[in-house]
């Protein structure tokens, strides 16, 4: 472009195209405010705290997390302390951990914030957040929970049980036992899994042994 007029024209065009593109972006991204009812998702978070930590410090961590959730307009549905449990593998050379389970309705931003804080804190060994549903009506869920729904916990022998007062501890083991007897589990050895011989015969032979083992548990 040799003439100045052409250059100006060209630059104006580019400027206008940029403006248009920006406008499209703002239009598509939409307003940045959170519509409270629509964006409440139901999450559950489990985090493991080091076993040596004092009870009030664990309370402090939990309350920090709940304040973040409620600061963004969410609601806590339930918080359970599963207490000290034996870990399936060593985490930071620790054999046991203090499990805390939280069920809440919140905004995705609060989840990111909570996880960021967990990551920084040295006393928290692990955390896991699971999204249960995309939309959640906190009031309705609270009513459902109040009807004594059994909360699934991994209650292993010798560990502290839940501090729920709604007979959940009694309901849970019964249900689990029912499942065990119905399903008739057969411990499959690794050879059977990888190899391909004698599968059916082996399973049938091993069934009486395993049933005895389950009863012993």
């Amino acid at each position, binding site marked *: 472009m040799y003439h100045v007029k052409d250059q100006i024209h060209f630059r104006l065009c580019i400027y206008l195209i940029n403006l248009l593109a920006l406008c499209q972006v703002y239009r598509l991204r939409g307003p940045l405010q959170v519509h409270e009812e629509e964006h409440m998702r139901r999450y559950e978070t*489990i985090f*493991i705290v080091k076993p040596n930590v004092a009870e009030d410090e664990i309370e402090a961590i939990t309350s920090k997390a709940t304040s973040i959730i409620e600061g963004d307009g969410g609601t806590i549905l339930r918080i359970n302390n599963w207490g000290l449990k034996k870990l*399936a593998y060593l985490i930071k050379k620790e054999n046991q951990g203090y499990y805390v389970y939280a069920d809440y309705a919140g905004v995705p931003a609060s989840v990111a914030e909570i996880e960021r804080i967990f990551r920084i804190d040295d006393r928290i060994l*692990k955390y*896991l957040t699971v999204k249960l549903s995309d939309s959640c009506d906190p009031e309705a869920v609270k009513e459902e929970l109040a009807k004594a729904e059994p909360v699934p916990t991994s209650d292993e022998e010798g560990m502290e049980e839940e501090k729920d007062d709604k007979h959940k501890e009694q309901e849970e083991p019964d249900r689990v036992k029912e499942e065990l007897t119905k399903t008739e589990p057969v*411990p*499959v050895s*690794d050879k059977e*899994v990888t190899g391909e011989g004698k*599968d059916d015969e082996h399973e049938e032979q091993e069934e009486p042994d395993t049933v005895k083992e389950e009863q012993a548990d």
Partner: protein
Amino acid sequence: MAPKKRIFPRQKVCRFCADKSLVIDYKEVRTLRNFVTERGKIIPQRIYGNCAKHQRKLTDAIKKARQIALMPYSGPTQL
């Protein structure tokens, strides 16, 4: 190759389809433990006869449980 393709004669029904009350949840380690070998490996679908959908959910739940140290990645499951 030796003839390794054996057709399993027994019609296996998916446990979870038959019994809708069984919930697959990563927190319920006792039910999950049934689907894992002694060394902690996930049992394939063809042995237990689970349907694909439930096998996927099961695998997902087991992996989550492993992540949160409710089940081991390898080695015997305690208790």
